[in-house]
């Protein structure tokens, strides 16, 4: 992108206000996690650019993406939120755990929906308490259950007596799956071994020696940033079998496996969307966005795991906006209408095929009682030789018997603490 054209665009944007749909993008292209923030932000923006270029926006109304750099920093996130909300922002994707927790009460008070896709507060699944927060299609507790189900499937449904370790980032995020894994351990009879890694996770010798000595059958990982790369490298060093090492979706990007080279071959990660660029939509993306020189960033991230995730988030937002236009009968929707659209969102296989992303994500539907989708996810595996991720399972559902009571309990605690009466009107 040229600075001059950007300047002109900025001047034009400052001119008379036309009807547009504003999607803020709280990106983090700098700071410690920039490598992960760049592809996500690119994917998010490119999808909207594609809609603008190809369809003239959503329902005839052009889209404006407001990018604001947070650097993964909570305070900058506050500034970004305050500076963009006045522009008619329809939905926020806060991206960092800290900013999400920040925005949960604020955005609710301001009547703007928040979509924390695969992160943030898990119990926001309960829409009766968290009216404006959505976390479809899957959350951390689903992820923990997906991993255990995958292990169950690999072992013919019986894992009593096996040992499963969890290597986790010692923060609120990393501790998310512990409760679920403990409950599942009681149900399935495996031995659970949590191992904490302190931030940032540059040095993990002790943890991996512990794994080497305790010999767990499987290792799960809730890691972030440099912790992922070091953990995968150390696992390769102690010759832990990579196909028994399963990471959460934030430990499953190209960035995490590439530094370990061939050693990372066979590493698995959970995911709630498909990977690679083998989808019809990518032809359009190439034609209307990349070849036209309108790609966000350097345009070299297409098809990476996090680019696809950003694109998926944009796709879900665009579909929710369509739904909102349908329900309200207006093209230029407000955040409140957007919220209603998100709550009525239904993703079916036909819809995804129509968009050009067949089998890209799980099918799910959202309702007031359930802001978190149906808890479907899949497992992907890294092929170091070919240098790509591919799905090795279909989307399957998490153990709702375990997760539903946990969600109900935590959301009830939040409701009591902040004086919310749960209701679905």
């Amino acid at each position, binding site marked *: *992108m*040229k*600075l*001059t054209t950007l300047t002109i665009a900025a001047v034009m944007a400052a001119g008379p206000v036309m009807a547009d749909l504003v999607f803020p993008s709280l990106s983090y*292209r*700098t*700071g*410690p*996690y*920039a*490598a992960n923030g*760049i592809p996500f932000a690119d994917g998010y923006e490119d999808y909207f650019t594609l809609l603008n270029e190809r369809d003239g926006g959503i329902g005839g109304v052009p889209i404006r993406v407001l990018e604001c750099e947070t650097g993964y920093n909570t305070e900058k996130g506050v500034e970004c939120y305050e500076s963009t909300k006045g522009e008619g922002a329809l939905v926020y994707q806060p991206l960092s755990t800290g900013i999400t927790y920040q925005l949960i009460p604020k955005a609710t008070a301001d009547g703007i929906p928040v979509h924390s896709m695969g992160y943030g507060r898990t119990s926001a699944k309960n829409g009766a308490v968290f009216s404006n927060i959505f976390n479809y299609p899957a959350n951390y507790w689903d992820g923990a259950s997906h991993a255990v189900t995958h292990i169950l499937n690999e072992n013919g449904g019986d894992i009593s007596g096996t040992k499963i370790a969890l290597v986790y980032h*010692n923060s609120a995020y990393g501790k998310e799956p512990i409760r679920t894994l403990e409950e599942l351990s009681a149900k399935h009879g495996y031995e659970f071994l*949590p*191992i*904490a*890694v*302190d*931030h*940032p*996770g*540059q*040095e993990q*010798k*002790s*943890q991996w*020696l*512990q794994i*080497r*000595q305790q010999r767990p059958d499987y290792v799960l990982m809730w890691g972030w*940033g*440099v912790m992922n*790369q*070091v953990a995968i*490298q*150390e696992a*390769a*060093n*102690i*010759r832990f079998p990579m196909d028994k090492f399963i990471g959460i979706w934030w430990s499953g990007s190209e*960035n995490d496996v*590439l*530094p370990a*080279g061939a*050693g990372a071959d066979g590493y698995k990660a959970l995911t709630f969307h498909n990977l690679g660029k083998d989808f019809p939509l990518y032809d359009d993306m190439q034609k209307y966005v990349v070849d036209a020189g309108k790609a966000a960033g*350097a345009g*070299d991230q297409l098809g990476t795991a996090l680019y696809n995730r950003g694109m998926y988030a944009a796709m879900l937002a665009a579909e929710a906006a369509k739904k909102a236009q349908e329900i309200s009968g207006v093209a230029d929707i407000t955040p409140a209408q957007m919220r209603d659209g998100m709550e009525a969102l239904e993703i079916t296989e036909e819809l995804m095929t129509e968009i050009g992303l067949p089998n890209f994500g799980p099918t799910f539907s959202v309702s007031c009682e359930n802001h978190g989708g149906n808890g479907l996810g899949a497992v992907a595996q890294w092929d170091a030789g070919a240098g790509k991720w591919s799905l090795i399972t279909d989307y399957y559902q998490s153990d709702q018997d375990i997760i539903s009571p946990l969600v109900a309990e935590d959301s009830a605690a939040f409701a009591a603490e902040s004086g919310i009466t749960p209701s679905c009107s």
Partner: protein
Amino acid sequence: MPDQVLFAMEVMLNGLMAGVLYALVALGFVLIYKASGIFNYAQGVMALFSALTLVGIMEGQVPFSHLINAIFGTDIHHFGWHVPALVAIILTIAVMILFAWLVQKVIFRHLVNQEPILLFMATIGLAYFLEGFGDLMWGSEIKRLDVGLPQGINEWIDLTTFEAFGYGFFIDNLDISATIVAIFLVAGLIVFSQYTKQGRALRAVADDHQAALSVGISLNFIWVLVWSVAGFVALVAGIMWGAKSGVQFSLSLIALKALPVLMLGGFTSIPGAIVGGLIIGVGEKLFEFLIGPMVGGATENWFAYVLALVFLVFRPQGLFGEKIIERV
């Protein structure tokens, strides 16, 4: 031998290795502090910057490509050549010498005789600057660094110990190379400071600035020299740590691992940095192994500092630090 003892021995050996890596970072601090009294917080960012430069040169990346592309609307990223590791390392050293000269010329020449805390803050400012500058110059994605160092478990040790004790010890090849490099580095530094003219000048400056100045030693030259050597040490640390995690932002945080080592060993002592590194490495690993499981783990970060603090209470100048003599 019972398993627990073997495990503890394995943990201890790995702690020693980790200690060497900490000591490598701490060395850079000591060199600069000794010669100029500057507590150089930017040492970690220097490791990041030098490693970024090394990878950038090896891969033939165009510096500032993002900025150039944004201003001129071009689309350039790579020169299209690959430089062999050794040549790239030499070029990176040249860059670090240039950097040292600039730091001295632009910043610290103007801050001579200021209070230590101001010098410290200036280095934090330098760290900020270099962080933004490095990212702008080479981009912020994670880069793979491969200078041909062996990685992974050492087969020989594994086999030998397995035959001896029935349990194969894990020692990372990378750690072994780091240890060898560190030994050479320290030996080189000692030879340099004991037997060369510049080295003697350097020690003279460290002892007494004014006396050194009065016998005709150029302080400016010595300071540039010492920043260059620190830049070189940073490069070595950057290669060692970067080989493990890829070259990325978090590399700058290794400075935080070196601080307890400094406290323990004393800010002014090279042997102190080595011994301190080893003590911290073994101490934190053993604590995590023995006590960690009882308190929930992830204790290494704070335990290193607490350990150093306990030592300091008994020896306020660090293990090998010069005795602090105070006069009214």
